[in-house]
């Protein structure tokens, strides 16, 4: 059985409380981090091969190193708890079952980048996770783990818990910053990257919940240990959110090198009702789909990239043989049409067109040219927009049609 890091306390009663977190070694990385130079913390995280676990898989330590050194201007740490990628739910589990790991990780990350204020942006629909996380923040303040001179270290750090108001695009880091600043969540053109000009115009690091929850363990047990759990290019275990037609859906912790087949059959009990696997979305709805024959892949960022898809948020959606892929595409296309923020023309227009075409195909009113039109529209728009949202939509548009074209064609009337 592989080592459990993120989930080690998930099944303990009251795992969200300071008492239980401390009983299992919680907040013991903090004194170590206070003894380390900030740059040494960043170096340790670099060596651990921790990569962003929200979607982009960018090396975390490298990201931190982009923050300008010195200066008197404030720097901000922003936690992306705007979990919204369809098929993903692991950050909800972390906020509810291990909130102090995020708080401890934030303090350490803040010391590394010389930030004294951190914002945690929690999606508006997450009421219970917000309540539990806010309770943990209060406990930490009461115990002197947040605020002025934490544990006599001379290091000050405050956490502001910020609630979103319902918009998938705010999970995109610059959209999130726009929203945090009290505006609609429109992504911003990069460069400048947030590390140079982020929240409220100041240098900012935006990291996912799970990414930061890994940090105390890396400081405690060392970069080599963490790196050794994974592949050459990505360290650690991670949380996979597995849903759809598996026997046991849920959050699974496994080394990043676990195969998709093992996740489905060993960890989640295989396919329900004795049915056969048809297809899997391996990394949240924006990840190109894999067929049942393509599941012998390593679930690390580079393994899935080599397989022509992406790990994204590690949301694994499993489809059995009864699933209509055209219907699934219509559902996904409806989502992208609804959530496009409207800023860039190719995304705003194409997501609407493609949803309309996918919808009429499912209704039996498709036209012969629709499939090629969808592929053409999808591919032309890719890479032309401010953020990665549209590229994410293109993943399912193209892969569902290219891998299951006959199924779409069967729905289009011959005389259309």
């Amino acid at each position: 059985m592989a080592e459990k890091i993120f989930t080690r306390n998930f099944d303990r009663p009251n795992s969200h409380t300071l008492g239980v977190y401390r009983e299992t070694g919680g907040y013991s990385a903090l004194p170590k981090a206070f003894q380390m130079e900030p740059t040494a913390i960043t170096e340790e995280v670099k060596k651990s091969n921790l990569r962003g676990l929200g979607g982009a898989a960018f090396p975390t330590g490298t990201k931190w190193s982009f923050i300008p050194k010195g200066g008197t201007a404030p720097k901000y740490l922003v936690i992306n708890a705007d979990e919204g990628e369809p098929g993903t739910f692991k950050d909800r589990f972390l906020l509810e079952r291990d909130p102090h790991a995020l708080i401890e990780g934030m303090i350490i990350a803040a010391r590394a980048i010389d930030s004294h204020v951190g914002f945690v942006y929690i999606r508006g629909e997450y009421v219970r996770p917000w309540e539990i996380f806010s309770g943990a923040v209060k406990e930490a303040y009461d115990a002197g783990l947040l605020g002025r001179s934490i544990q006599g270290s001379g290091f000050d750090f405050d956490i502001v818990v910020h609630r979103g108001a319902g918009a998938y695009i705010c999970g995109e880091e610059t959209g999130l910053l726009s929203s945090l600043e009290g505006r609609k969540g429109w992504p911003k053109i990069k460069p400048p990257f947030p590390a140079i000009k982020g929240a409220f115009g100041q240098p900012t690091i935006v990291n996912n919940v799970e990414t930061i929850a890994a940090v105390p363990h890396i400081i405690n047990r060392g970069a080599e240990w963490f790196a050794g759990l994974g592949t050459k290019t990505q360290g650690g275990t991670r949380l996979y959110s597995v849903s759809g037609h598996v026997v046991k859906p849920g959050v699974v912790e496994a080394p990043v090198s676990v195969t998709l087949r093992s996740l489905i059959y060993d960890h989640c009990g295989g396919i329900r009702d004795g049915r056969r696997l048809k297809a899997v979305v391996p990394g949240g709805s924006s990840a190109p789909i894999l067929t049942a024959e393509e599941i012998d892949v390593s679930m690390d960022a580079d393994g899935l990239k080599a397989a022509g898809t992406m790990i994204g948020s590690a949301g694994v959606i499993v489809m059995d043989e009864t699933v209509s892929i055209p219907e699934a595409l219509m559902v996904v296309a409806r989502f992208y049409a609804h959530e496009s923020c409207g800023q860039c023309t190719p995304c705003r227009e194409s997501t609407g067109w493609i949803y309309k075409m996918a919808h009429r195909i499912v209704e039996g009113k498709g036209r012969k040219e629709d499939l090629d039109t969808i592929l053409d529209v999808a591919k032309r728009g890719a890479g032309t927009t401010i953020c990665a949202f549209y590229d994410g939509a293109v993943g399912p548009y193209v892969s569902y049609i290219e891998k299951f074209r006959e199924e779409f064609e069967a729905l289009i009337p011959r005389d259309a």
Partner: protein
Amino acid sequence: MPDARRPEFTAEQLNEVRRLQALYPDKQGALLPVLRLAQEAFGYVSLEAEEYVAGLFEMSPAHVHEVVTFYTLFFQQPTGRHVVSVCHNLSCHLLGSKSIVEHLTRRLGVEVGETTADGRVTLLTVECLCACEQAPMMQVDDRYEGLLTPEKVDRILDGLS
């Protein structure tokens, strides 16, 4: 509940507005939390409430309107006493969200987006609420309810005031 068309916070709520505004390097950061407060206080965010909130931030009502209309959790019209939001994204779709929505529309006698005549329930469909392990699922006001069956949906509805 105070009149949404003549919105005004109490002294206590105004203190909360000032506390929220002080949390951010620029008080504008508190706009979303204050709009949430307004919605809780007045039931929904009317145009009048937008203007009132704009005054508290010394910003244009147009900016506040732009924000309110961007996010799904701000309501520009009164809702029922309870808001039932059924997820219809991929994982819930695979596990039967369509039949849950159909059951709700029949049982409540409304279409998606409508409120029952007695003002009890507003029915919505929403994108992924990120609780796919419990699919099919829905949000009832602040609560997540998952592993839905028509029978379970009936029990939940029976429990609403």
